[in-house]
């Protein structure tokens, strides 16, 4: 059974103080429907990925709320896996198609975070970690900072080399009209930015953002001759311990290694076959480690390869985060997983405008929850 992507749309990401969650959802879903050339009545179910609506907005039952914005009173579900909520929603949507229960579904990722103070958000995001980490006062950046320390120590990587991740993603962001930040930054700028959790500085960390992204997928063979058909050929999930300190390694996410291995097998490809990918760079260290876990770079060389330009648009071999990634495009937690799919879809359709990776045939999305407790990998082909 082929999983076809019909419509794919992402709202602008940023501090959208004037736009409510309902309005965000409506914009994303309406436009995804438009792109799919379907009516709302043709959608069988809605899958929502979101992390913080309960914690920050006191709103549970999110599926029921947002299906009102879809315009079709169909079954609706919310999935949560911290920052992997979007990817998990898609994974479950795909499974529902494979099971034959539904034929065409809408998958929406959405998050509103910017209406709160930094310490409130920090507290809320700690929900992605473990109780032990919370009691130790280990904030989310703090946990990744511990990974960064271990990585830098083990492989002799400098803070400047890590900074090149943010620099690359901001460069990509200049080509993305939907990105939260569309200006370039420099390594020097990163180094001078305020420390959040040593050694991670402000510009090593993805921002707090609002945004939504939606896609329509179907198991039916509806073919739109006007655009290139894009299919999801693999959707795999793997988990690891919730706490960082219980993991086997502080410099590699086993969940990513496992999920991607399963995905490559399913898709019948090797890591080097990937042309373009969207990586979960919640922090600069995350992308460095991810490129190693996904098999693009040798262990310990991830950051250095990025610094050398191997993942950069127009000059690299496997292009990572053409959208600007989480750092530059923004990271509305629940929306990211779906936005990644939207980006890769546009890349494989040849409709990515200024950030087009020429001749992209195979795309991958890498969506991670917490400090690596859950990883969702999708592989798309045209």
């Amino acid at each position, binding site marked *: 059974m082929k999983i076809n992507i019909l419509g794919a749309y992402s709202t602008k990401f940023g501090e959208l103080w004037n736009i409510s969650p309902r309005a965000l959802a409506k914009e994303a879903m309406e436009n995804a429907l438009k792109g799919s050339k379907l009516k709302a009545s043709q959608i069988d179910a809605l899958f929502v990925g979101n992390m913080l609506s309960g914690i920050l907005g006191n709103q549970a039952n999110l599926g029921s709320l947002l299906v009102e914005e879809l315009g079709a009173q169909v079954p609706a579900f919310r999935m949560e896996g911290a920052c992997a909520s979007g990817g998990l929603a898609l994974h479950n949507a795909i499974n529902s198609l494979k099971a034959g229960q539904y034929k065409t579904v809408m998958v929406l990722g959405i998050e509103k975070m910017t209406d709160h103070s930094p310490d409130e958000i*920090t507290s809320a995001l700690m929900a992605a970690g473990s109780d032990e980490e919370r*009691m*130790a*006062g280990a*904030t989310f950046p703090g946990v990744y900072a511990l990974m960064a320390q*271990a990585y830098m120590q083990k492989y002799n990587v400098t803070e400047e080399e890590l900074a090149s991740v943010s620099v690359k993603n901001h460069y990509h962001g200049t080509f993305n009209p939907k990105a939260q930040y569309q200006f370039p930054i420099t390594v020097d700028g990163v180094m001078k930015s*305020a420390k959040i959790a*040593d050694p991670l500085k402000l510009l090593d960390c993805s921002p707090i953002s609002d945004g939504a992204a939606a896609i329509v997928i179907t198991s039916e063979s509806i073919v739109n001759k006007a655009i290139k058909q894009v299919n999801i050929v693999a959707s795999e999930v793997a988990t690891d311990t919730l*706490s*960082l300190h219980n993991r086997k390694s502080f410099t590699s996410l086993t969940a990513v290694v496992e999920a991607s291995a399963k995905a490559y097998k399913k898709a019948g490809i090797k890591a080097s076959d990937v042309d373009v990918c969207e990586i979960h760079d919640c922090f600069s260290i995350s992308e460095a480690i991810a490129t190693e876990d996904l098999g693009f770079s040798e262990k310990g060389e991830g950051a250095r390869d990025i610094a050398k330009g191997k993942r950069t648009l127009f000059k690299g071999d496997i292009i990572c985060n053409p959208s600007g990634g989480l750092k530059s495009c923004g990271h509305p937690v629940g929306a990211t997983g779906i936005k990644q799919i939207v980006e890769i879809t546009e890349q494989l359709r040849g409709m990515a405008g200024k950030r087009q990776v020429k001749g992209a045939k195979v795309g991958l999305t890498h969506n991670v929850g917490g400090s690596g407790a859950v990883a969702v990998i999708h592989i798309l082909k045209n």
Partner: protein
Amino acid sequence: MQWTMIRVPATSFIDQAPYPVVIVRMQDGKNMIGQLVDWQKKDLVIGKEVVSVLRRLRTEGKEDVIYYHIKFKPI
């Protein structure tokens, strides 16, 4: 084993920042994560020996229950 300095804290830890958080290997081989207390800059090195102590977790409201928690102190 590893350390970092938290400078942007969560709400309940706001009056303690900046503070170090460390991952410690215990005598039984298991790892634990915790705040480091009574520290000086020279203690923030990988491999520093620490001992576990009981301390107040954070500052709570005037009428709330007081929480105690394990933290670590350099020897």
